[in-house]
């Protein structure tokens, strides 16, 4: 028996969220007294794979093949299920990334396993196996018991710390069988913006709303974000108006995020917006209206005009960064 963690790579590299999910799976494995096996799919160097050993993995399975070069939900789900069977995995852990969310439900069906998606904390495992997950768009949490023998869990990025543990992992090739019926979807084109921080994984997020008056004023928001190494986000009215792309919209009907720091500029804080950002660890609100509801949900508030405050924040962020580096 084992715990299996799927370690997702982006262009051959592991992101911080991958090490989070390994650390999370390692804690489950330790509690269950089971070995932790990691599965990597696609072209990843042995040097990169070896990093998994630093976080509690004892064995890394490496699945490669022509049909596995690009992330593709159906063959990937099939390989994960094959590995789970080969390793007699009782718990299968994935990241609730875009691809993880597409893969996990398929793995659960293939293994006749119960699925808990978007989990935000370590399961309680004394007696029933109970996970904590977000519910009602961030307005509540649900505690869900998984009662099946095999369990599939997807973990929200940024919800568990990366924990190092001494050790190393043996890397072995995992032989797979991919059926033609799993290869009907083809990726025609992939566009990645490599210079920007990906929003769901970001530790720091700078977000702006209608208070910015128009898309031409986003330069200072981007400058603040770039200085801090933060991702940029926006409120729903801003993406609806086409000022910013929908992929930046955070809130109930956009992306739900849980960064360490969320800076909201010129966003009033409607309940639908708060739902998507309320699990941020620290919230800073800049708004010229002292009655803006967002101040009630903030840790720090600055009442003032964005066009006056943001340049000051940019200047201060630059000074802060240079003092950090110096």
């Amino acid at each position: 028996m084992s715990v299996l963690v799927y370690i997702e790579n982006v262009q051959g590299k592991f992101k911080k969220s991958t090490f989070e999910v390994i650390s999370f799976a390692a804690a489950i494995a330790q509690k269950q007294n089971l070995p932790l096996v990691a599965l990597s799919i696609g072209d990843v160097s042995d040097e990169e794979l070896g990093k998994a050993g630093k976080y509690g993995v004892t064995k890394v399975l490496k699945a490669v093949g022509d049909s596995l070069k690009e992330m593709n939900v159906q063959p990937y789900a099939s390989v994960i299920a094959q590995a789970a069977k080969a390793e007699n995995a009782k718990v299968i852990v994935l990241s609730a990334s875009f691809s993880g969310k597409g893969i996990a439900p398929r793995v659960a069906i293939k293994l006749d396993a119960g699925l808990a998606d978007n989990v935000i904390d370590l399961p309680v495992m004394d007696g029933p196996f109970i996970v904590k997950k977000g519910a009602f768009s961030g307005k509540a949490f649900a505690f869900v018991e998984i009662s099946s023998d095999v369990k599939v869990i997807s973990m929200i990025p940024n919800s568990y710390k990366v924990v190092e543990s001494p050790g190393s992992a043996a890397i072995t090739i995992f032989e797979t069988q991919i059926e033609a019926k799993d290869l009907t979807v083809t990726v025609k084109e992939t566009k990645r913006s490599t210079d920007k921080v990906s929003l769901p994984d970001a530790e720091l997020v700078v977000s702006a709303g209608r208070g910015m008056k128009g898309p031409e004023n986003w330069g200072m928001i981007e400058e603040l974000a770039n200085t801090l190494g933060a991702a940029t986000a926006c409120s729903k009215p801003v993406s609806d108006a086409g000022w910013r792309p929908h992929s930046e919209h955070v809130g109930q009907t956009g992306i739900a995020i849980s960064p360490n720091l969320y800076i909201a500029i010129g966003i009033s804080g409607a309940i639908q917006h708060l739902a998507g950002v309320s699990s941020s660890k620290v919230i800073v609100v800049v708004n010229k209206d002292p009655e803006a509801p967002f101040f009630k949900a903030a840790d720090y508030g600055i009442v003032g005009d964005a066009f006056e405050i943001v340049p000051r924040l940019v200047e201060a962020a630059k000074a802060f960064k240079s003092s950090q580096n110096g």
Partner: protein
Amino acid sequence: MKILVCIANVPDTTAKINFTPDNKEFVSTGVTFILNPYDEIALSKAVDLTTGGGTVTVINIGDASTEPTIRKALAIGATDAVRVNSKPRDGYFVARQIAEYVKTNPFDLILCGRESSDSNGSSVPAMLAELLGIPCVLFAKRLTIEGTTATLEQEIEGGKEILSSPLPLVAGASEGMAEWKIPNMRGIMSARTKPLVVIEPIEVPQHTTVKSYDKPIPRSSVKLIAAEDAGKLFDMLRDEKKVI
């Protein structure tokens, strides 16, 4: 083209969420229920795709209380509706009920919202596709169909990808796939007489159970920084919160 749209009945996005004193159940008294916003995008897209011909069936897993939401979907433009008469226990239960229906009533395209705003689950579309042995594109922002091939744009880590998939296919609708449609008077009038079939659920093993709910701890009161001291923010974030 025959399209199936899977719809969920969820609390209004502005609703305050409360639970029974033992935290075991959601209190729905006084809460308005709506069509899940992502499902509404899916439905709007389905209506757009069938303007030149075709049908849009909506399916909901719910008790009789969800019928106003189903009628709204019919008013937006669905042709007919199916209600599986049971509370939606979990994603697996819902996916199995829909798969069961689709096995005897095949569709060219199945559209769902990318997630539901109550359980925050996004498992139904991919589970359904797996049960039916067909592809699923979960975070589809754009969808075009030519003959029996769909072209989709999907959000991925740090970017997007363009995919080509044969039909039938399950697609999860994200913002951008279609404009929300507002029902017009003719739609509202005709919705009353459109067919709504009620079927009984099949037995499905239960793998997951919600044991209780909890609400986030409210933040302690906000610390206000004077506008002229805005520059001190980052030192405070480092010293007091250690987040940068």
